[in-house]
């Protein structure tokens, strides 16, 4: 960097900034996360886009410097001389300590705000008790007094999901909703008070999705799926009226994993 002229410095800065702008424009316009099917996922997507722009900036700066250095300072064949004995530059070292610190602290603050945002409790919500076991899901609706193996929800209503597992760890995820949380055995027992087993999500696009298990739970893990249906409140009420009442004995016998293709063809129709 000793012999780098101001002109070179500005040229390289220009290249890095141009790469940042072009890269960001392309990356931000790609729909990385699929359908945005809940208010929470919108917040996450905005956060992703901001992170992509900052990441593209960092990546462009590093790659511009790296490629320039490799191109400019390649030794000619047979050149056995040494480079310039430059041991460091305090000003530069302070810059590349402080600037990344500011970037990551900024991202941390923004993430905290976004987290509070997606976990905010709405005034009105609907409770669903989700129970997982190898390799099946059960959804109980205490307000409606019904139970089902499909998750049906009225569009635009915040769901208050209470999660528990009967055997091993499972994890609740609907990719289109962006929200995920493990189901922990014992979270419904007296000793499970410290387990944070409530997660909120507000689906806002009608459609048919999949509840996907994302915590390894045994041989049937890959096919442990259930339908998640977001429908109009009227359709939901009609559906709920049709379902089985919650039995006194709260333990269901889950179906085995079953045939993979069947599960997917059935549920990934969105």
């Amino acid at each position, binding site marked *: 960097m000793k012999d780098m002229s101001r002109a070179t410095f500005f040229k390289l800065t220009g290249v890095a900034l141009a790469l940042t702008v072009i890269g960001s424009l392309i990356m931000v316009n790609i729909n990385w996360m699929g359908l945005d099917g809940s208010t929470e996922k919108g917040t996450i997507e905005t956060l992703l886009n901001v992170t992509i722009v900052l990441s593209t900036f960092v990546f462009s700066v590093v790659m511009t410097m790296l490629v320039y250095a*490799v191109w400019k300072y390649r030794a000619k064949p047979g050149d056995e001389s040494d*480079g310039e004995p*430059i041991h460091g530059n305090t000003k530069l070292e302070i810059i590349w300590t402080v600037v990344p610190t500011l970037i990551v602290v900024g991202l941390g603050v923004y993430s905290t705000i976004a987290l509070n945002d997606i976990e905010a409790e709405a005034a009105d919500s609907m409770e669903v008790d989700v129970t997982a076991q190898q390799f099946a899901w059960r959804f109980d609706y205490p307000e409606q007094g019904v139970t089902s193996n499909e998750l049906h929800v009225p569009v635009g209503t915040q769901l208050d999901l209470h999660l528990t597992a009967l055997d091993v760890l499972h994890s609740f995820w609907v990719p289109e909703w962006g929200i995920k949380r493990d189901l922990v055995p014992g979270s419904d027992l007296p000793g499970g008070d410290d*387990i944070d087993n409530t997660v909120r999500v507000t689906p806002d696009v009608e459609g048919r999705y999949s509840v996907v298990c994302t915590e390894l739970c045994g041989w049937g893990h890959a096919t442990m799926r259930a339908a998640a249906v977001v429908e109009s409140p009227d359709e939901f009420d009609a559906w709920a009226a049709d379902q089985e009442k919650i039995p006194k004995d709260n333990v269901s016998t889950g179906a085995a994993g079953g045939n993979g293709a069947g599960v997917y063809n059935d549920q990934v129709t969105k």
Partner: protein
Amino acid sequence: MVATLKAPGQPRAILGLILGAAFGFGLVVTLRAISGLEIFQTEQTGYPHIIVPAVTGPIGYLLGLGAFDYWFRWAAGAPTIPDDHSQHGAKSWKDYFKFNTDHKVIGIQYICTTFIFFLMGGLMAMLVRAELAQPGTQIIDPGLYNGLFSTHAAFMIFLFVIPVFAGLANYVLPLMIGAPDMAFPRLNALSFWMLPMAGLLFLGSYLAPGGTFDAGWTGYAPLSTGAPLGQSFFNLGVQFAGASSVATALNFLVTIVTMRAPGMNFWRMPLLVWANLSTSLLVVGATPFVAGVQFMVLFDRALGTNFFQAAAGGDVISYQHIFWFYSHPAVYIMMLPGFGIVSEVISTHARKTIFGYRLMALALLGIVVLAFAVWAHHMFVSGMFAWLRVPMMITTLLIAVPTGIKIFSWIGTLFDSKLHIENTSMLFSLGFLVTFVVGGISGVMLGMIPLDIHVSDTYFVVAHLHFVLFGGSVFTIFAGLYHWFPKMTGRMYDERLGRYHFYGTLVGMLGTFLPMHWVGLEGMPRRVADYAAQFGDWNLVMSIFSFILGAAQLIFIYNMVVSWRYGPKAGPNPWRAKTIEWQVSSPPPVFNFDEIPRVVGGPYEFGVPGARHAIMHGEEEGAEVTTPEPAVVGAAGGGGGSGGSK
């Protein structure tokens, strides 16, 4: 025959293995018979008549090999066999199968053994990718699939990346600091020989009823506490690998602190030494936790304890806390030695002193401190105590700062350098800079809680971890192997084949792991034997590139094997490097130095006229006077002139 079985060595070791296993088996059978229990208990979490021999067998092997002979004689007050150093050095390939206390022999033993484990782990990964090439189940049933990715990870982490770095450092580090050997040579040999035991246990699990361990390398309870017998083999294998790792780390710490050559103060240590000092601190602090938690799982399985049984008052989530309290630092255990290697390679092959040497060393220590305060970022969606998330996110994001300092300093080193891009180890270091930056960026994304909620346990995580462990650790391992190959073997490798290997590996790596980001963000969970049809195309692409990646490694093996035997002689210092290991012959003499060198300056004083790092035996005195300290910019020694380069 009897004499062969009496002397330490492989025949006695195998006899020891059999006798040890028989002893364990007999003990269980006898005790159970006396207690009036069913003699063979075959619940899937039980099988004491197999678990106990799985411990006593390997210990019998180590006893037979002679790992404890000297200590036992000494402890018993018997005359110890005078150490005539006959077991130093290796005269033929057979010597590598003996209990050898020479750090250079142990280094090669480590590298060759771990590389075999690397190939096995790679084959498992290719089977996994073959199954994933298309949606649906084609060649592997879901149970075996879970076993394959679990053993793939266990091999790569516990039997390749962590120990191969220990092996490289074993060979190079004592030479670098001017020491005749490691501080505890017998412990060093024992550390190595515990590794094949771990490998035997991991592999042996495939023979267990119910198949190999299949709860992932993370082995989360309660899936692991209820899993078939193979899981117990994992619990025990981790004990051997972990004990090996801790003993080696202690050895490095004592060696680095007490055995540096005169004049080598901390600010004159090569960054590889700094990196292994930092790594060893992490290992000593963290590895006992994984050993402990695997014992807790084993006790839950076999002894009826209830650490992780929710129904019996156990705490399921505490497994994850203890596990990640080791396994996050383990990420840096697998990366810091690579940072050290890259520093050596870049400085040497760019003919340039490291930019900001002191900040580079301090950044390593910064990572060590922060590494212990970030573990719960693996648990943002686990249902753990919610308040813990934000502090752990902040520490996680901050770890990008010392890491960034290192990246910028390496690139700073390249400016105004004479960069030898034709060199394979340099290519791998440059490749590392690109792939590791990608892995670092996705790491920051994963550290941000709202993003992690969406991508946790998806292929995005698989992409990230392979960019840091393959693009990071494995690239630096290759850089190190190429860089020190001439030192270890005394011969040069083929640079052209090295370049083919590099480009094959880079292309294979990017094609395999880059699309994983996309399918992960879009909704493909990890650890699945089967997936939705929408991800089929990308998975086929990834599988094809993974086979290119695998094939590229054949070039490496060919290059190494043929060059070791037929390569042109390397001479002591083919790279014209400054650090001490290059000032002795290749391979170095059995006891490294005729006389301990004196260190008189920094390790990377390229381009400083008259600068020396160390004065070797028989060289002129007085060069010392004119050599500058590393931090003094450009105060190159005028006058003197006696310290001209070799």
